[in-house]
């Protein structure tokens, strides 16, 4: 037994240490100074081992601390109920959340990589391995919840014996659910992956979530006696269920089913295969599609026509949604004059918000992904396709296309905003209308140029259509963060609008120059 424990620990640790080292090697700049033999170097190994040990400790306490702090204590304080009912609120939240967690986070039915390595690849005894690791996980729960239960329970005013009941209750709930699932597997042969809950489970969890936080808001709480009874019964059920877990003898076939399906998604090459197939599915098989153009225009037109579903159709859907929203606001403005002022004020100060909205509705990433997987991925292996002249010609055609697609909703939004401004009371400075419209159009063009430029300058994919460029991901992340932070910016529309227009025009000029200078060298499949 100790051998299994030791082996599974060392396996998990090796896997974690190597993951840490691998992660470190992915960071731009740092990866340059780290030797490729990092996995062999003792110093690095020790460092990663320390991180791994810290992680193990954190996993015992940190998650639980955050859970109690955010999900229970902070949430309870929002209700502003009298102090004497705080133990009751605490138990109410804890009990329903625990039952949700017991189903959504069983450990037993979580198909993780370390289980796959141990039981499938290395052929360790499934029952031994599972039991030892399962009870270790339960042990961690007991330790973590004892500490957190005592701290937060006492703060909420629970007596000590009830605080001590908390870890036993949580462990009991988890064991009971796990035993029930094992029993169900025996009966039906279906192993439920906890990360893939069915539709019914999601609805149930949603209902429970509403019950958790909604009921206290309208003053309904589980009575304390009932809570205590539920906890005690669960502990007893948990104790009885331990027997089922110990005697269950189909761990091996169960995990085989659970893990083999799940590892399909973990294996990068299988994953990219699935993604590729999905990407190919977006290609329209409509036989009537054809083109009368020539050369690269021909290539582009066929591409656009066969990818209607992810390009024009989704742009059209967004446009329809925007039209509906604008119509609703217009009607509101007509029949409820009191909101006019408010809407007018919003339009004059909240233009930065639209940077984020324009970011969200832009089809750029979908476009470049489809471009690569369904087109460039194969054509870039032909030398005629890589001639500088051809690369730039196609870039121009594509840029025009992506700008057109994104302009459809942008024109409607820009026009709609100007219209709303007029209907909501107008503005003294007529320039505001023009700036509002022009800045939305500029933002739309900016995102189109941005995504296509980044794609041409960094070409992040390798031959297996995996993204291999850290810089690319970093830029995508920064783009998101900057747009997201725009939500916080409040600025007169005129000022922000003019700034946006200037920025977008400058960006487009610089981006085009960069593409023309660099793309013939950078637009390659990554090795």
């Amino acid at each position, binding site marked *: 037994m100790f051998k299994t424990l030791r082996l599974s620990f060392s396996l998990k640790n090796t896997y974690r240490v190597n993951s840490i080292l691998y992660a470190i090697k992915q960071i731009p700049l740092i990866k340059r100074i780290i030797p490729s033999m990092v996995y062999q170097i003792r110093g690095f190994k020790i460092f990663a081992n320390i991180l791994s040990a810290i992680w193990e400790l954190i996993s015992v306490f940190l998650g639980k601390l955050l859970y109690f702090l955010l999900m229970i204590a902070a949430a309870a304080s929002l209700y502003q109920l009298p102090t004497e009912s705080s133990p009751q609120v605490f138990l109410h939240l804890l009990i329903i959340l625990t039952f949700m967690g017991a189903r959504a986070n069983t450990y037993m039915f979580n198909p993780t990589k370390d289980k796959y390595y141990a039981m499938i690849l290395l052929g360790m005894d499934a029952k031994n391995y599972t039991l030892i690791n399962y009870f270790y996980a339960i042990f961690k729960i007991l330790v973590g919840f004892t500490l957190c239960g005592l701290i937060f329970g006492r703060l909420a005013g629970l007596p000590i014996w009830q605080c001590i009941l908390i870890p036993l209750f949580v462990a009991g709930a988890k064991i009971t659910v796990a035993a029930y699932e094992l029993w169900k597997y025996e009966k039906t042969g279906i192993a439920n992956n906890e990360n893939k809950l069915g539709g019914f489970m999601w609805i149930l969890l949603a209902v429970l979530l509403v019950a958790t936080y909604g009921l206290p808001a309208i003053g309904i709480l589980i009575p304390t006696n009932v809570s205590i009874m539920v906890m005690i019964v669960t502990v007893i059920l948990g104790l009885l269920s331990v027997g089922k877990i110990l005697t269950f003898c189909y761990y091996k076939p169960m995990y085989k089913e659970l893990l083999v399906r799940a590892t399909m998604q973990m294996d990068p090459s299988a994953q990219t295969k699935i993604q590729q197939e999905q990407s190919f599915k977006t290609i329209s098989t409509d036989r009537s599609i054809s083109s009368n153009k*020539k050369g690269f225009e*021909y*290539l582009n037109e066929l591409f656009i026509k066969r990818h209607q579903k992810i390009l024009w159709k989704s742009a059209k859907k967004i446009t329809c949604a925007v039209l509906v929203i604008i119509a609703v606001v217009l009607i509101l403005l007509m029949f409820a004059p009191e909101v006019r002022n408010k809407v007018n004020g919003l339009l004059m100060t909240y233009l930065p918000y639209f940077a984020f909205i324009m970011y969200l509705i832009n089809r750029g990433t979908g476009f470049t992904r489809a471009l690569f997987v369904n087109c460039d991925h194969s054509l870039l292996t*032909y*030398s005629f396709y*890589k001639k500088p002249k051809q690369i730039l010609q196609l870039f121009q055609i594509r840029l025009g296309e992506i700008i057109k697609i994104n302009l459809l909703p942008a024109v409607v939004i820009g026009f709609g905003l100007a219209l709303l401004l007029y209907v909501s009371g107008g503005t003294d400075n007529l320039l505001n209308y023009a700036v509002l419209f022009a800045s939305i159009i500029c933002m739309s063009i900016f995102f189109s140029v941005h995504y296509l430029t980044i794609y041409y300058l960094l070409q992040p994919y390798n031959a297996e259509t995996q993204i291999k460029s850290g810089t690319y991901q970093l830029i995508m992340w920064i783009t998101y963060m900057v747009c997201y932070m725009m939500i916080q910016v409040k600025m007169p529309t005129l000022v922000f609008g003019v700034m946006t227009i200037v920025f977008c025009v400058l960006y487009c000029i610089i981006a085009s120059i960069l593409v023309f200078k660099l793309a013939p060298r950078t637009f390659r499949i990554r090795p």
Partner: protein
Amino acid sequence: MKFIIEHLSKSFDKKQVLRDIDFTFESGKIYGLLGRNGAGKTTLFNCLNGDIKTDAGRFFMETDNGIRGVVPEDIGYVLSTPTVPEFMTGREFLKFFLDIHEDTISNSKSIDEYFDYMSIDAEDRDKLLKDYSHGMKNKMQMLINTIAQPNLLLLDEPLTSLDVVVAEEMKQLLRSLKTGRIIILSTHIMDLALDLCDEIVLLNYGVLETVDKSNLDSGEFKDKIIATLREDGNV
């Protein structure tokens, strides 16, 4: 015409894959590039095709008019896993290619003539390439790479995953193509190399070397190749 590589080298991190590639290929011949797994055959092809940068060295064409650098039109590169634009039909892909090269392709034929030449069935010509079988994609890739008549044709493991009929068709095609150009094909399969190639070149320990066949029967020749690969692998 000759294709000359001089002192080409390439490393990944600290691993030197290509150490000192120095070789002259002559037109009219099929070269079989043999090497063990991980010897760097694909890396060499990728370098020659300009897909990855080399660390040092150069390669160029030597013609009757002197030497000149390699331009993209010189090279046709057929990958082991065939890659074709999945969203086009075979006919469309071919039309696109012919459009682009209308000034450069001499004596071009009709699209259907090309398909006939490649034995691609009439019913498959208007199917999307994503629905082509592996062998058909391979044929399509071969076709595109040969129409433009590149001076240097690189083939990475070309026949490994084809059925026997298609493989035989490909062999015939390659033999018919070799006049006036250089064909280099990498392979693991020694019999294929011996059957099809005029010269056997070993990529071993980062350098290219020929194996002299004079006075050896094919059995002895095979033994010699294996012995060479084994020896150098243990250096």
